[in-house]
């Protein structure tokens, strides 16, 4: 079986090398999660394990080709990665977001802003690598300092607001070969700081590609939100239907901070999305908003780990899955409430709509509550399009395909409504609709 471990990089400084070595050792010892792994129970990695991934062999792309993937109407700092490799020549200037704000490749930040990076990089992810099922976290850490570890550092100091959202556009191309990329982003927001960060995965494969590209994105983003900070994070995943995307978002929230994580999974063969906030200061707010649309034989696995570590915090998990054809969805939602975290208010909701008899979804709530004065609820529903509603639409003259699409869109719409950036919302709504089986000739106002 080919190894996924990147060749050891001569990472410097020493603290970075130590992180990488620890990751490599852990991955070598634990290997890929197998069939018995509790946290990968519904997601089989057997075929994945046989693929020999290499560093990207090419990262050619023109600015015009990249621009086709920009978010229409969004005034953002567009940072383009091609097959995991940063391409400053076709990216926007990252400087100038505001006084004291640092926005640069992580490698540059390690060299130039060590004092800002060292206390935080890996601080949230490193303790996770020994947990069950976290092989990909270890693998990502093993790649730190190497060529396959492209990513960005965004630092917004206390009281500052990033003038524009940062749009990290990750374009994958056939010319990149069967590449693996272990991207790594770090976002630190000081007290009262504000920032929006978009991770956007796209492919130049066209929808009808006979042999879609095979590649792996195994990216980790860490967000450290200071007191009263407000951070919005988006993960928009539209990879090739033969690609693997393992994404992890680790978040640490100080008192009264407000972090929103929006995830929309539309592409990929096998996608695993981990969102793991730790509410560390009192009265912190966390919103996890997710939507996934599976087609063909896609498997979209969402694993939440919400850790309430302080009193009076508020967390919301709202996930919606739309599953067509023979696709599979997984939603695992763990909520951990420490004994100290009294007055926790946590809600978890997972709703799925199955558009085909062969589509499946597995949902598991996992509550670990050690405090007694909490409000913690979870709920899961799975259904189909309401046929009575379809008839109601048709009885008003609306053709069946449009009726169904409008109903599926309506199911997803509240997820879009929670997103603050309207251009992102509109783009995603359009792209979601375009992926529905009944989408032909459809024009829904979004």
């Amino acid at each position, binding site marked *: 079986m080919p190894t996924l471990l990147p060749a050891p990089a001569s990472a410097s400084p020493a603290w970075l090398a130590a992180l990488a070595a620890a990751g490599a050792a852990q991955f070598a010892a634990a290997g890929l999660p197998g069939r018995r792994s509790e946290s990968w129970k519904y997601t089989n990695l057997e075929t994945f394990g046989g693929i020999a991934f290499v560093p990207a062999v090419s990262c050619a792309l023109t600015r015009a080709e990249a621009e086709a993937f920009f978010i229409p109407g969004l005034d953002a700092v567009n940072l383009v990665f091609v097959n995991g490799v940063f391409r400053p020549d076709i990216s926007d200037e990252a400087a100038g977001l505001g006084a004291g704000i640092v926005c640069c490749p992580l490698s540059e930040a390690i060299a130039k802003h060590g004092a800002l990076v060292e206390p935080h990089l890996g601080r949230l992810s490193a303790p996770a690598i020994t947990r069950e099922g976290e092989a990909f976290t270890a693998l990502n850490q093993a790649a730190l300092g190497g060529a396959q570890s492209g990513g960005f550092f965004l630092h917004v100091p206390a009281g500052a607001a990033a003038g524009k959202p940062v749009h990290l556009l990750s374009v994958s191309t056939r010319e990149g070969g069967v590449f693996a990329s272990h991207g790594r982003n770090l976002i630190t927001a000081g007290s009262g700081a504000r920032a929006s960060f978009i991770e956007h995965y796209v492919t130049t494969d066209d929808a009808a590609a006979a042999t879609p590209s095979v590649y792996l994105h195994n990216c980790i983003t860490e967000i450290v939100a200071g007191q009263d900070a407000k951070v919005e994070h988006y993960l928009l995943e539209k990879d090739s239907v033969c690609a693997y995307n393992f994404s992890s978002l680790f978040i640490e929230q100080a008192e009264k901070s407000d972090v929103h994580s929006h995830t929309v999974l539309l592409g990929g063969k096998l996608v695993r999305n981990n969102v793991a906030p730790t509410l560390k200061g009192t009265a912190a707010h966390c919103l996890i908003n997710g939507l996934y649309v599976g087609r063909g034989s896609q498997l979209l696995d969402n694993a939440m780990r919400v850790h309430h570590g302080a009193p009076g915090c508020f967390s919301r998990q709202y996930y919606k899955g739309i599953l067509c054809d023979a696709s599979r969805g997984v939603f695992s939602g763990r909520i951990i409430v420490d004994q100290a975290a009294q007055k926790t208010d946590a809600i978890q909701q997972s709703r799925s709509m199955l558009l085909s008899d062969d589509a499946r979804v597995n949902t598991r709530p996992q509550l670990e509550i050690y405090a007694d004065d909490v409000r913690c609820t979870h709920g899961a529903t799975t259904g189909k399009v309401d046929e009575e509603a379809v008839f109601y639409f048709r009885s*008003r003259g609306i053709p069946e395909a449009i009726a169904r699409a409008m*109903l599926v869109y309506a199911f997803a719409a509240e997820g879009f409504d929670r997103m603050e950036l309207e251009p992102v919302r509109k783009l995603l709504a359009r792209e979601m609709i375009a992926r529905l089986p009944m989408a032909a000739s459809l024009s829904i106002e979004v």
Partner: protein
Amino acid sequence: MTPLLQIDNLHASVGEVSILKGINLTINPGEVHAIMGPNGSGKSTLSQILAGKEDYAITQGTVAYNGKDLLGLGPDERANEGIFLAFQYPVEIPGVSAMQFLKAAVNAKRKHHGEEELDAGSMLKLFREKAAQVKINPEMLKRNVNEGFSGGEKKRFEIFQMAVLDSVLGILDESDSGLDIDALKVVSDGVNSMRNGKRGFLLVTHYQRLLEHIVPDFIHVLVKGRIVESGGREVALELEKNGYAKYGIYQPAKH
């Protein structure tokens, strides 16, 4: 003259259970017909079959609309050809605003007739005009279809839709049930204002009260899947007085 609707010996069933057992009914342009009948006699089944509900098997008989076979058309085609069913139980549609819903319906009809989509301004004007006509608050259009509407609001919203879609054959399945006196007047006025020499209506009702507001040309009594009596207003008055006993139907005591 070609009848607007001609139902001939219509039999329909669900699974093994036969519900309609030979319905004959002809509605000419300009006519208003009322159907009365005990609970479970098949009134809604007939209404839904006319609108194109696919849950029922048509085992015998024909239905012609403007002289052409109706049963071969899908529900959306029927609607676009002018048939409108005001539901006994209008369906709540979370996540779809009444505005979005009606825009889609209006434009579907226009497309069906080879017309351009209506621009936003004209659409709004149309909605305002019809809202005034059936006295609904246009603010209601911002809400999701039927979601959280009161019983009476739902019924009024159905009549509003019929007015917006400018339907030719209106089938009103108990549009009067649960209405207060003012709302009953609004619904009746809505229907009466649409009455002309071309349109036809089929009113399903339990109460002769509605028929004082919308005076029908014919009243039919449907019992156990068959029309057992047809006539004028006297039929309704008689039913109001004596119930369905004479048709051999057990009626629970009125409370």
